[in-house]
């Protein structure tokens, strides 16, 4: 068929074809699927089928250059002749390069325009795909940023919640947990706890509310906004009011440092980020697991922070810090069943060490013993 050779045939031994290229030609009388023909550039125009009987000349003035084809990057030279539409399609790079390199002056502006259009199209394409890729990857980027900057994001979010709102939220949570707690209101223990707590937190931005719940577990917990609940088990395990004061100072710091609030934001943020990334809004197992892992990681350094800051509260209230250290120590040494307070507040050796170091560094302060008969108070608690 002789139509297999493509592109510029500059290597052709035929001297007359030295400045020719091949292109697919469409037009009346030609094969409908196009015919690959040789084209030569001349002074005034194109010469189709150069040096053949059917040679045809097309003036550059008649030509219109446009970009097209399936990939929108082919060069199409179109013209009309005697009412028929003709076109040459240059699809391969050698042919296009040849025409660009040997551009006749009459065609130069059009070719420059074609080049610009192709380049613009490529830019747009690249931009479009980048935007699309970013859009598709956005959830994962979000997740990555959240992983990387968790603490900052959580702090930023927590700073946007006012103390009033936090207290409202805490109120809500407390109302919800209340039915599962057997609160003691009418006895000496709640009053003493409230006095010690009040003494510790005097002058802070929060209005603390201290509660005692009848529960044998050795535990205490704080709710955002200032509700602190102490279990009777904890009171019974303590040997002096100073030991209780240490725990209260620690819990009060959880509130003052907004640890519980931040933990909640953290948890919510994790869930949201994972839900967006996986597209699973029902909170699948993966989300559950990841959220839990997030909380655990949150715990340790916050506990140490609460310890050290709690120490400050004790100092301000002129309460002996030894109670705090000895109580955690005592609980850690106590064998038997796992102690709830330690499982949520892991009493690692490091933590105790840090606490002792802080006391040694700051020096002890003048402390006044708390005026309560602890042994008697313990007898007022409901017997177990």
């Amino acid at each position, binding site marked *: 068929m002789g139509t*297999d050779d493509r592109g510029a045939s500059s290597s052709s031994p035929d001297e007359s074809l030295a400045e020719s290229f091949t292109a*697919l030609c*469409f037009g009346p009388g030609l094969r*409908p699927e196009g015919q690959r023909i040789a084209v030569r550039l001349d002074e005034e125009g194109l010469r189709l089928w150069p040096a053949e009987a059917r040679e045809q000349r097309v003036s550059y003035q008649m030509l219109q250059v446009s970009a097209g*084809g*399936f990939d929108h990057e082919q060069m199409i030279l179109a013209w009309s002749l005697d009412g028929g*539409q003709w076109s040459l399609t240059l699809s391969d790079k050698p042919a296009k390069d040849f025409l660009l390199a040997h551009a006749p002056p009459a065609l130069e502006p059009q070719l420059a325009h074609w080049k610009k259009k192709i380049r613009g199209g490529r830019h747009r394409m690249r931009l479009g795909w980048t935007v699309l890729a970013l859009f598709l990857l956005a959830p994962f980027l979000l997740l990555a940023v959240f992983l990387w900057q968790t603490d900052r994001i959580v702090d930023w979010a927590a700073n946007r919640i006012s103390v009033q709102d936090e207290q409202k939220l805490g109120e809500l949570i407390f109302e919800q947990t209340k039915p599962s707690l057997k609160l003691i209101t009418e006895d000496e223990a709640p009053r003493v706890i409230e006095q010690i707590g009040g003494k510790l937190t005097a002058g802070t931005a929060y209005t603390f509310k201290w509660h005692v719940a009848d529960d044998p577990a050795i535990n205490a917990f704080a709710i955002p906004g200032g509700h602190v609940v102490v279990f009777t088990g904890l009171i019974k395990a303590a040997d002096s009011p100073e030991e209780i004061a240490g725990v209260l100072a620690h819990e009060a710091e959880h509130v003052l440092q907004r640890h519980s609030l931040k933990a909640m934001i953290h948890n919510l943020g994790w869930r949201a980020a994972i839900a967006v990334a996986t597209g699973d809004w029902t909170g699948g197992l993966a989300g559950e697991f990841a959220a839990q892992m997030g909380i655990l990681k949150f715990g340790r350094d916050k506990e140490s922070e609460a310890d050290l800051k709690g120490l400050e509260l004790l100092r301000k209230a002129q309460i002996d810090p030894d109670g705090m250290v000895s109580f955690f120590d005592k609980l850690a040494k106590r064998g038997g069943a796992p102690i709830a307070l330690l499982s949520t507040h892991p009493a690692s050796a490091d933590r105790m060490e840090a606490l002792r170091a802080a006391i040694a560094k700051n020096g002890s302060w003048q402390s006044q013993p708390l005026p309560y008969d602890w042994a008697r108070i313990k007898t007022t608690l409901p017997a177990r």
Partner: protein
Amino acid sequence: MAQMHEIDYQIFGSEMQYVEIELDPQEAAVAEAGGMMYMDDGIAMETVFGDGSQQKSGFLGSLMGMGKRLLTGESLFMTIFLNQGSSKRKVAFAAPYPGKIVPLHLSELGGQIICQKDSFLCAAKGVSVGIAFQKKLGVGLFGGEGFIMQKLEGDGYAFVHAGGTLMERTLAPGETIRVDTGCLVALQPSVSYDIEYVGKIKSALFGGEGLFFATLRGPGKVWLQSLPLSRLANRIYAAMPATGGSREEGSLLGGLGNILDGDR
């Protein structure tokens, strides 16, 4: 045409066609795995990774090819049917759903054809089956089936399959037609392919057409199918008893008719 295998073929059937290919000794055809209908004794079947057109491409090359084939929704492997006998043998490939088989002689068509993914049926060995991306993002997002297409390259025969009735049309330079994106089967690479927004929400909602049309601008040949498989599948799915469709064919007797027919 040295490396291409020149094959003779005959297409049988009217609406559910199959193509019978006659292989000279040592000639081979490649087909999408699972398309074979029958073959003569003496034809060896070999499953290859990719389309069997390239000799060696290394590990990375084959990995790329794998990704491309996954993108076009094809099976990872193709089957080569090689005539090992000393006389002519026949192998036949059947169309997977009602429609027409289109024989495309690639060298007469400029060496390259872009076709709808999944429409490739079989070809002479040496025809490479590649992937053709639409580079325009609009086409990618709204072009439906037209975004990722197959590129058949070579100079032998390739057979693609069209659903329903086939329409072959030659577009003069600058001539434009608009088609439903699903109805396009194949086009010459000289044809510009674009997506046009119809812009009438009413026609999109109530007219049953999509919001976007494919615009094909000549010069070149295009092949259209009257019934894309997805349309047929939609109707069949809607009529399936399992999805709440009704089985009877409009009998006034309704359910009673089914009992009388003995369908139940």
